């Protein structure tokens, strides 16, 4: 007996778009039991991910995703790229299960680039549970971002928080380097300014010592050098060398 069960969708991804350059994907978890049918009961599950929503059709209206670097309109091709990227992520995470583009099912797209999606196992209609999809996306997040030229802030999966990259902290804080340079320059300056006058004084003292020597030599003028250079004052001259008696 094959029972047609009406399963609640276990994992839904809601893809939504932020203004102006955001694409937001939202995963919504349905809290209820995630029961897996055992092999015995394998009903054919016709899933209709829009069954949980107000029954809207998938609308694929072209709308613009603009980003800082490139503005491109959202289109079916972009959706195809998304499905391919997600298939890659699933393959990468599960190490080889051959997920294809047809295993990713987006639905409930809105005018704002935002939609739900579900992932089924290859060649079956089994749903892959949310946890696995989340882990796969986390692992390949950079690649998915790169495919759309977006970042963690502009492409959002609701429920998957970006792992925070630690701010780069180099081994020596850069400020210490600049501090060292400045202190080095200042110390050289201080030493130079303190030593310079001492050196100058010493040079001057040597020069003065030379000058003083030459002064002393000419201090006492002998007749040969210039004792007779002075003004001859006849008042004091001795007309007669010997006093007259």
């Amino acid at each position, binding site marked *: 007996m094959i029972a047609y069960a009406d399963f609640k969708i276990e994992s839904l991804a809601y893809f*939504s*778009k*932020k*203004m*102006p350059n*955001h694409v*937001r994907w939202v995963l919504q978890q349905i809290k209820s039991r995630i029961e897996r049918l055992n092999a015995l009961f394998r009903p054919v599950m016709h899933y209709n991910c829009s069954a949980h929503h107000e029954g809207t059709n998938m609308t694929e*209206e072209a*709308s*613009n*995703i*603009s980003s800082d670097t490139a503005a491109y309109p959202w289109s079916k091709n972009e959706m195809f790229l998304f499905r391919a990227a997600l298939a890659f992520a699933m393959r990468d995470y599960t190490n080889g299960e051959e997920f294809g583009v047809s295993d990713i099912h987006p639905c409930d797209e*809105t*005018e*704002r*680039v*935002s939609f739900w999606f579900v992932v089924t196992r290859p060649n079956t209609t089994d749903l892959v549970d949310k946890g696995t999809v989340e882990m796969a996306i986390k692992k390949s997040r950079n690649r998915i971002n790169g495919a759309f030229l977006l970042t963690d802030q502009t492409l959002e999966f609701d429920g998957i928080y970006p792992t*925070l990259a*630690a*701010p780069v902290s180099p081994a020596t804080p*850069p*400020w*210490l*380097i*600049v*501090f060292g340079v*400045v*202190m080095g320059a*200042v*110390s050289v*300056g*201080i030493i130079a*300014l*303190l030593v310079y006058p001492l050196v100058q004084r010493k040079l001057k003292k040597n020069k003065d010592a030379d000058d003083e020597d030459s002064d002393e030599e000419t201090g006492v003028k002998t007749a040969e050098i210039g004792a007779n250079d002075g003004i001859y004052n006849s008042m004091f001259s001795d007309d007669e060398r010997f006093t007259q008696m």
Partner: protein
Amino acid sequence: MKLKLPNPGLDDRIPSHEDLERMETEEAGDRPKWDNKAQYLLTCVGFCVGLGNVWRFPYLCQSHGGGAFMIPFLILLVLEGIPLLHLEFAIGQRLRKGSVGVWRAINPYLTGVGIASLLVSFLVGMYYNTIMAWIMWYLFNSFQDPLPWSQCPLNANSTGLVAECARSTTVDYFWYRETLNTSAAIDDAGGLQWWMVLALFAAWTLLYVCCIRGIETSGKAVYITSTLPYLVLTIFLIRGLTLKGSTQGIKYLFTPDVDELMNPQTWLDAGAQVFYSFSVAFGGLISFSSYNSVHNNCEQDAVLISIINGCTSVYSATVIYSIIGFRATQKFDECQGDNILQLINAFDYPENSITIDNYDQVLTNLNQTNPDIIQGLPLKTCDMETLLSQGVEGTGLAFIVFTEAIIKMPVSPLWAVLFFIMLFCLGLSTMFGSIEGVVVPLQDLRVLPQTWPKEVFTGLTCLISFALGLIFTLRSGNYWLALFDNFAGSIPLLVIGFCEMFAVIYIYGIDRFNKDIEFMVGHKPNIFWQATWRVISPLIMIFILIFYFVTQVTKDLTYLVWDEEAANFPVLEARPYPSWIYVIIFILAGIPSLVIPIFALFKFFQRKCCKDKSYKDHPVDTISAKIEMNGKAKF
């Protein structure tokens, strides 16, 4: 009003005009001299133009009616600033001494005025150089990309950002936590923060190397420190005007609100700003002026420097507000962007369906159609006015608001480096004047042996200031600095300024002063100077002093703390000071002011009880003292 108090013996204490002429022609080598006029002007401009022009004036301008604030500012500049400046220049040039020497020469009982100047210069220099240390810290940290104040660090288990940073902003966090590591109260001292100690050490040693031999060395440094800020301001103006939103900031700054002129607080703030902006009463200007030649035209200098100071204030206000306008516009756009995003997400509208222009319209529509959903959304109110008026004075402007603006500009590290170099130069040139105002009176007071070279005096000053300034490197250091800023640099300066004016006009004698100026400059000072010196300026200063005193004494003394547990967290909370702070306040504000009468009394008792007059004050004039022996000795 020809009031003149008796002042015996004045002629013996000051050089006469003939002496001055003689000193002018024969180079008295041991007093330093300016290399050229430009050096003198640059030093004075550097001393007057300081951080206050950049971060106090724009705030006052914007908060007291924008363009209308110019009116009281200019009026008080002319009636109060220029006369005071001219007075200090003239008296320094005439008596050729530092501040203690000048007041002692006018009358030994007035030496207290010089000592008060010394104390105020010392206290202000101590905390001002700490601000320099903060600027240097930011400057050292600007040589990296991304700038450290643009990101929040992760918390301990890397699950998210540090709570303190997430609740406030990255720039707040960097300032209060990573720079100051501030505690939550002034009595919670915390320990010395080693990185701040290093920065303070760097600031003092750099100052020492520039001031090591007084104006010989600082005179060379001012060529750069006084001119670079203008260059950087121009660069920022050009950069700022090309940024979106800058014109809004400038409009906000200058939009006049004439009603503010009726508010007495506006006039009080304008007067106080003019007074403090001119760096009078520190003693530094008297010192600088005393190194001039006797016939230097001090009147022209005073007017020129006042005009430069006023224009710099207005110019830097324009630059600052263009950048603030940019920051406000960025934050407004971000805020609106967030709101629009919320609406689009909630209602699944396509991209770009809601823009800033139709946001209000759409919001009102949606409020009518789906009010419950709208209520549930955390929409923020985005108001340009509040963003433009956010905390934009003092250290808040430089280290929080401006740094935030810088990280939004492209090539941020370049702008950060330029900005902090500009602030550093502005502060350094002011510190030259402070050091001059401490070292020269110290030498004149002869408390330390005269034979010690100037390098030792400067070194001692820097060392002691550094040691005492370590208090600002504690975790509560920011609160201590605010205390010093409010009390050490306010009331004592007003008191000293008033006493200076009174002493020169009424104790030295306005007649003698007029004749001196006629001798130095060539013409007697005109009626404008007479009126302002004798009546107008002293009255204005008394007014400001009384009002200031009354407002300080009557209001409850509170200070702003950064406390994570406070109710409005990112907003600083006002807390009352603990009671022992009042003792500190008295020491800071009262002691310099009270030194003036106390020293006068001390001198009075000294004269009374010990009648031995200091003979060295009255050298005996003899003929043999004037004879030249061997052409070498001259007594």
